[in-house]
């Protein structure tokens, strides 16, 4: 760790590209390579990456100057890392992404919407909602009349779609 040249970078947007990372991180020194963190299942970026510099000093300067600034309007976090090894580019959450996205409760547009668990719950809720609505296949005749009367003289097809 005392001589590492690699940084772990977290809290990225899923849409942040390598080139954006390159632009920002090269401000602390020449970059050797960038490894994007990918979801194990979909092989798409899942919000973290590794940045490797040529020297340890550059990695430290990056910690001093770049850590905690914004990229793609998100505050990014950097940590010194013992070094990248094959396999570490994949998320370790159960759904393939990062563990933190597994349990996240807030909606985060730039990180794929809901966290994985919450996304499943939301999906389930939506399914149930649809089921319970679809169960009422026929709208009671009286109700239809009421709706139409409130909307004024609407076309029959419009009223029927409810």
């Amino acid at each position, binding site marked *: 760790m005392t001589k590492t040249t690699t940084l772990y970078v977290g809290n990225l947007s899923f849409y942040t590209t390598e080139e954006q990372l390159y632009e920002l991180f090269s*401000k602390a020194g020449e970059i050797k390579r960038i490894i994007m963190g990918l979801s194990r299942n979909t092989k798409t970026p899942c919000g973290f990456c590794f940045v490797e510099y040529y020297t340890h000093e550059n990695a430290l300067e990056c910690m001093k100057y770049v850590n905690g600034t914004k990229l793609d309007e998100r505050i990014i976090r950097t940590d010194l890392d013992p070094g990248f090894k094959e396999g570490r580019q994949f998320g370790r959450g159960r759904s393939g992404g990062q563990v933190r996205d597994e349990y996240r409760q807030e909606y985060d547009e730039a990180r794929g919407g809901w966290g994985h668990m919450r996304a499943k719950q939301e999906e389930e809720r939506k399914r149930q909602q649809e089921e319970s609505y679809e169960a009422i296949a026929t709208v009671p005749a009286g109700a239809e009349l009421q709706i139409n009367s409130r909307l004024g003289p609407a076309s029959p097809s419009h009223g029927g779609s409810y």
Partner: protein
Amino acid sequence: MDFSGRLGGGHGSGARRDVDEFGRERRNRPHHRKPYERPTRGFRGGRPPMSGRAGPADEAKEIESRLSSLIIKVGDKNTPTLQNNLDALSVVLEKDFTKHEATVLKTFRQCVLELPWKVTVYSTLAGLLNAKNSETGAKVVGLMHAVLRRELSAGNWGAVKVLVRFFALLVDANAISATTLLAMLDVFLKPVVSDDGTEIAVSAQNSCYVFIVTSALLWGGRALKQHAPEELAVRLQTIEHYVQRHSELNQDNTLTAVFHDAQPKGTNILAYQLGVLREVAEAEWKIDAVFVPNGMFASELGQATQHDLPTFELPTGLRSDSYYVPCEFLQLVPSPAELVVRRYVLQDLIADTISQLEGNRKDCAKYLMQVHGLCGEDVCSVMTAAQHPEDVDPESSLVFEYMMVEVLFTSLMQLPEGPYREMYYSSLAIELRKAEPQILANVFETAVENIVARISSFDIECINRLSNWLAVYLGNFGFQWDWTKWEGAAEEAENSPRRRFVEETLLKLIRLSYLDRIKAQLPESCLSLVPSKTPAHNFKFTVQSMDERTREVSVAMGRCLKNKGTADQAMEILQTHYSQWSDVDEETRQGLAREMLVEHVLLLGSKTFSHMLNAIEKFMPALQRFGDSPEAKLQIAQVVEDFWLKNPQFCAITIDKLVNYRVIDPATVVTMLFDTSHIGRWCMFHLWEILRNTVNKVNMRVVQLQGRLIVAQSAANAIVIDDAEQSETQQKPQGESVEHVEAVLEQMLLEQKEVVVLTTQRFVQLLSSNDGTADELDRAWLMGRFKEFMRSYRVQIVANTQALENQVFTADASQDTRQVFENTRVLST
């Protein structure tokens, strides 16, 4: 990590145990803290926790952390209680000193080094400790002297300056004698004057030393005037002579001037600083910008014992570019002319704070906002959020925020280069604005607009730096900026400084985010300043634009690469196809095949930076085989440039990686950059980004090899000693042989020389010819970049003076290029 343990970092952890509930070592990071685990700082009234576990060791820690916090906080503000606080603190410290010596000394050292604007408070505190107990005083003074020697041998000039100023004030606090201080200053002044006292030697080193001494005299002059007026006069005369000689030599040297509309002073801040010193001397050496508490304790300090300090040596063998280059504070906002001394004193303290707290930008921002704490009420005004920015009149009184931002931009724009990376000043500005969102958003906006209003006389490299700074800064605040103020730029010539600045800043913003995001932020009137389409590649072999047989090769190559074909397979395809082209000669065939290969490899790697690296790595053997002559290498580089014509970022990265893999040489890049096809486009920033990257890379390789040589030499020496001890065992030398590294280094030094000479030559040829530039503005850009190159790499330039004089600066070279060469040599003596 050396920067996490800075001031304030370790406080409040008094009663925490060193292992967690699982017996593992605790990692002191906030995000590892469990929700139920409260930081001890939060206990009401600051009392230690009431649990039975708190043993004597914990209590001692608690006391020590409270002592540190008292030392850090004392004198934050110039309040009526300051005298009592200082007195009480010195009593407490004196009483507990023996018990907590290490902590007190450590905190004291940190405070002097990292809170430089409170130097008057800490020198008084040291004086009071000394007056109460001269043994304690001796320890404090001795420690600071050891720190000074250490910082000096490390060449940390910022720290040295702060420490010498502290010692200067210790005379006033009666902790050291005037003769001790004079002896210290004489160490710095010794190299300035020849042994017989007649010659003055001007150099980067001596300017740095004179600057340190002048800074110290500003604060120590009062005591010296009282105790040793004649000796003081002698030192002042030495400084005057130096500054005069320095001014003569730098009279027309505008090589490092940031603004060209002001009086050309060049590097001549020393004259300005001397002027301030003279004014202070005339005012009986009284500095009224900052409160000096020594006076309140005159009778007590008067009875103290003075300490003598041993003398010390200056470091030797440092490169001329490793010294601190004093620079003048930029005037970006008008300020009252009669307050020049106050302004200098405060800005000097601000500059030291920015420099000394570089390790922790958050703390730096926090403390910077407190620097005015020791000022009297009428010295400078501090903005409030309730004020409208236009209600503050910087011409009637000094405005703290403007002074601070001026210092920040001075450091950012320092030429030839500042002590820290440019990015530091972006992230520091971000922290400052986060701390005071309303006030500083306006202050930064005013400062940037005032610079842009003078942009035609702004140094070219500084335009580039400001553009980088602004892009990162805006990227952290939602890209919010009043672009309408610059909409007139769209009407100006393509290469007018303002238009270039705005366009390049927008390009940087697009690199940091994406085109549509930036477009959404721009008013209609500025849309013509950004590209209409997302930057993409420019693949040559699209179906429409080629003949039948070229299409055949291209399709075959495309298929091969897409199906994960190898370098050999690709070479085979090129061979089979082009060998049938009997109507063209071998050289043309090679050129066509080379172009075909490079275009397809680039296309394969055009998706992301990683794809590009993979593609180049995979086809490296083929690329290297095709790049077998300087002309062939140049063709490869030109194909890359053409392919990424609309995406300068990718162009720069690809060129960089090709140099890394030695597919092309640094000299290839230089030749490509100065190609006549770029005439009229010298204003484009990315060309110079590529040049800088390339030269830096060559220089870095030299430094690395020099390091490897030292390792190899010491390893070889160790083996010799081993051999001598046990001559029977035939040990093979491990690691690299010295001869091998020496040979590689020699090769690399030749390459470095080639790049430096070639680049200078191309600059001078273009600047000395009528066809080298398209118009006056084009020439101004090229000239600016020439100056940037010369002063940035002055060490390499001076090392190759002979070659440059013979090959480049001949009679054909234009007068102004030769002037730049002369100025570069003066700069690096």
